[in-house]
C-alpha cells in the first residue's frame, strides 16, 4: 500500500511539470498574437484574391472547353495538357518560377497560388457539365430554350454540385500552400512557421501552424455552407 502511494506521488511529480509547461507554452504562443492576426489577414487576402481570380477564370474556361466543336476541341486538349503539367509542378517550384519571372513580393505569390488553384476547378467544371444527361439538354432545347438559356438554366445548375466540389478542393490546396509565400517575400503565416523552424523556436512555429490549420478548416466549412445554399436540393446527392 505504501509502495503504491509512493508510486502515485512519483507519477504526479512527473505530470505536474508537464502541465506547467503546457501553460507556459500557451503563454509563449500567445505572445505572437498580434503577428498571428496580422499574418492571418495577409495570408487570407492572398488566398481570397488567388482563389477568387481562379474561380472567375476557371469556370468560364471549363464551360468553354465543354462546348464541342472541331477547332475548339483541339485547342481544348492542348490547354488541358498544359494545366495538367502545371498541376504536376510542385508548389514550391511554382513559387520559385514565379519569383524568377515576377520578382519578390505579394503578386508572384498570388500568381503561383492562382495557377495551382486553376486546374481542379477547370476539371470539375468540365466533368460536371459533361455529366449532365443528354436528355436534359434535348428536353430543354425541344422546349424552346436558346443555347445560352440551356447553359444557364439547365447545364450549370445541374453541374454546380460537382463544380463546388472542385472549388473546395482547390481552396484547400491554396490555403495549405499559402504559407510558402513567405519564401518569396509574400508574407503570411509562413513567416512564423519558417522563422520558428530556423530558430528552433517551437512556440513560434506553432503560432504559425495552428492558425494555418484552423483557417484551412474554416475555409472548407465556409465553402461547404455556400455549396449547401447555392446548389439546388434536387441535385445534391445526400439531401
Amino acid at each position, binding site marked *: 500500500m505504501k509502495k503504491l502511494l509512493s508510486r502515485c506521488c512519483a507519477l504526479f511529480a512527473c505530470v505536474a511539470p508537464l502541465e506547467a509547461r503546457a501553460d507556459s507554452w500557451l503563454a509563449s504562443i500567445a505572445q505572437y498574437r498580434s503577428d498571428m492576426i496580422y499574418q492571418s489577414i495577409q495570408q487570407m487576402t492572398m488566398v481570397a484574391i488567388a482563389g477568387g481570380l481562379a474561380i472567375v477564370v476557371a469556370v468560364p474556361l471549363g464551360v468553354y472547353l465543354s462546348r464541342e466543336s472541331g477547332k475548339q476541341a483541339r485547342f481544348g486538349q492542348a490547354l488541358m495538357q498544359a494545366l495538367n503539367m502545371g498541376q504536376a509542378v510542385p508548389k514550391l517550384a511554382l513559387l520559385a518560377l514565379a519569383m524568377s519571372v515576377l520578382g519578390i513580393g505579394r503578386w508572384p505569390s498570388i500568381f503561383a497560388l492562382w495557377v495551382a488553384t486553376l486546374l481542379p476547378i477547370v476539371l470539375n467544371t468540365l466533368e460536371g457539365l459533361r455529366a449532365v444527361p443528354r*436528355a*436534359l439538354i*434535348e*428536353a*430543354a432545347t*425541344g*422546349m*424552346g430554350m*436558346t443555347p445560352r438559356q440551356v447553359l444557364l*438554366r439547365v447545364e450549370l445548375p445541374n453541374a454546380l454540385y460537382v463544380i463546388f466540389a472542385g472549388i473546395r478542393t482547390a481552396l484547400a490546396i491554396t490555403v495549405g500552400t499559402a504559407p510558402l509565400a513567405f519564401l518569396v517575400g509574400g508574407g503570411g503565416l509562413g513567416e512564423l512557421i519558417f522563422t520558428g523552424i530556423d530558430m528552433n523556436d517551437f512556440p513560434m512555429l506553432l503560432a504559425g501552424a495552428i492558425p494555418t490549420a484552423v483557417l484551412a478548416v474554416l475555409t472548407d466549412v465556409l465553402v461547404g455552407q455556400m455549396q449547401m445554399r447555392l446548389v439546388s436540393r434536387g441535385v445534391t446527392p445526400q439531401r
Partner: protein
Amino acid sequence: MIKLSNISKRYEGASAPVVDGIDMEVGAGEICVLLGPSGCGKTTTLKMINRLIQPSAGKIFIDGRDTDEFEVVELRRQIGYVIQQIGLFPNMTVEENISVVPRLLGWDKTKAKRRAAELLEIVALDPSIYLSRYPKDLSGGQQQRVGVARALATDPPVMLMDEPFGAIDPINRELIQDEFLRIQQQVKKTIMFVSHDIDEAVKMADRIAIFRGGRLEQFDTPDTILARPASPFIAGFVGADRALKRLRLVRAKDALCACECVARVGDSSARAQALLERHGVEQIVLLDAAGKPQGSLGVAELREIEGTLIAAHAKPVSGLARHSDDLRSVISSMFALGQAWLPTVDDEGRFVGYVSQAHIVDMLRLPAEVCA
C-alpha cells in the same frame, strides 16, 4: 393541322437517307402514332417537326404555316414536347419544371404557379404535395405525369411525344395511358406519338403511320391496319393475333344485337315465350321498371309460369358487360363464365342489349383474300 410534305433526311456521307419522302397529314385533335422497328426513321421524323433535326428536303406545315417561317425557339415554345427519358430538370422543383415554357414566354410568377397547380390536378397529382417536390422524390410514373403536365403548360395545340411511356413498368404504363387518353378527351391536342409497341399504338392512335427503312409503309386507322395490312412486313409487325387486337378497338355498345328481345316485370309469360321463339334464343333477360336486369329466364321456366312475370321468377344473371367496355374484356368474361352472350348495361345500369360471340365473329370476319 400537321402536314408533312415530301420530307427527307440524309446525313452527309451516308449512302441511304434516314427518312425518305414522307407525306402525311394529321387532323386537329387526332393522335397519330409513328410506329416501326428501331432505326426506321420515326424519331427522326418527329424531331424534324420541331426542327431539332433539320430536314434535307421537303416542307412541314403546322396549321397551314410553313415551320421554316418561324424563329426556331418560337416554334418549339408553341409545341409541347415529351421524351422517353422524361427530361425533368433535377435542379428545379415540379412547379419550376412545369413553369419553364410559361416563364420563357414571359408569364408572371403567380400566373405560372396557378397554371402549374391546375395541370397537376389534371394529371391526378395533388398540387399541395407535389408542387414543391424535386423530380428525384417522384416515382417514374409520377415523373412522366409531370412531364406531360409540363408539355401542356402553355396549352399548345400540337404535342410531340417520343416514346413517352417507354421507360415505365407495364402496370403503370397501362394506367398512365388510360389517364393520358382521359386528358386528351379534355384537351383535344393534335399529337404525334412515337412508339415501337403495336399494342400501345392500337390503344392510343386515331391513325397509325408504320415506318420501315425511312419510308412510310402504311398510314391508316388502327382498325384498317389490323384488318388489312398493306404488306407482309406490316402483317408480320402487327402480329399473327391481329384479329384479336381488333377486339380492343370496338366497344360493347357498337356490337349490340337483339335489343328488343327482353321481358319486363309485369309482362305476360306468353309474350316472353313468343319473343324467345321469334328470336330463336334460349334465354331472355327480365328487366324491372327502371330497365335494370333482374335475371334471366329460360324456355322451361317460362312454361311453368302462368300469368305475369315478377322479379322472383328469374335466375340471377351470371355476368354483365358495360357498354363502354372493349370487346376484348367482354369476350374474356364470356370465356370465364362459359357463356355465349352477355346482357349489356349503360352507366346507370340500364339494359341496352346483348353482346354475343356469334355476332362478334361476324363483325370481325375479314374478306377471304386478306385471311390467306
